């Protein structure tokens, strides 16, 4: 199941520039989930983790059989590992980009393997960026800047 970090964000209908960006991190590796979570929490983001693509889709309300979300789920960035059992990060990316409600959320794909065809595939598929693992604090800081810019531009969907 997806685990929400201990940071709580008060439910609000007004958009606030001071709100912490919310990152959904998808990775089947327990160690990597723990590290990514801390990377983004330390970059002052709220983090939710999911252990595979299926769980991530369920969280986003995009799983088979689910109705589109009517709650005010706000996700500013999805960061997903490429190699995962069941559904790869690329397949997850495609599902998100096919969704009318979630397609505008930037998706970053990460992988421990530097394979050009894989990178191309993900970028063609609409990934915001493709990063190599293990992630570093500088990666999280950079991504956080992207998120903030996107929020300011009003790219982030909020219902």
């Amino acid at each position, binding site marked *: 199941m997806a685990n929400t970090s201990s940071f709580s964000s008060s439910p609000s209908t007004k958009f606030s520039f001071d709100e912490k960006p919310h990152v959904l991190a998808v990775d089947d*590796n327990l*160690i990597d989930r723990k590290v990514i979570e801390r990377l983004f929490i330390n970059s002052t983001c709220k983090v939710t983790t999911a252990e595979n693509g299926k769980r991530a889709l369920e969280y986003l309300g995009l799983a088979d059989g689910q109705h589109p979300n009517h709650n005010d789920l706000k996700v500013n960035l999805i960061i997903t590992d490429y190699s995962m059992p069941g559904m790869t990060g690329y397949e997850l990316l495609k599902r998100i980009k096919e969704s009318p409600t979630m397609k505008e959320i930037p998706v970053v794909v990460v992988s421990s393997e530097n394979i050009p065809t894989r990178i191309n595939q993900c970028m063609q598929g609409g990934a915001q960026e493709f990063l190599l693992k293990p992630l570093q604090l500088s990666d999280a800081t950079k991504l956080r800047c992207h998120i903030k810019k996107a929020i300011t531009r009003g790219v982030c969907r909020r219902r």
Partner: protein
Amino acid sequence: MERTRLRRQVALTRQSLFDQGFLDEQFIQLEDLQDDANPNFVEEVVTLYYRDSARLITNIEKALEKNSLDFNKLDGFMHQFKGSSSSIGAKKVKAECTLFREYCRAGNGEGCTRTFQQIKKEYATLKRKLEAYFQVVRQAGPAETACWPK
């Protein structure tokens, strides 16, 4: 002063882990994530690593015992194990994992078995060294608090 001596010991122990090639830059990344709110983050991640990877080691062991080796399966396990090892900065372990995967791809069972013995050795050595390191860290302790960290 005792605390100064202990702090120096921590610094020296830590440096030797890098100098001797047991740890790489990624360990420093973990250290940078540690702060007052999460003062034991590095030890927590390392503990989690040893707990979580134990089952991978067992799986690989079992898979290597089979008469006919499933190299895809072995490579899959090793991909996971290498990923975790890389995330904590386990330099020597990671290098052996890379070698193992090359043997998998070449379908070389004997190479896999041999390399796996080396992996287990490096894995155990690192565990010992890190346990000793964290013990000194705990002994040196934070200056402000009166209680011993777990």
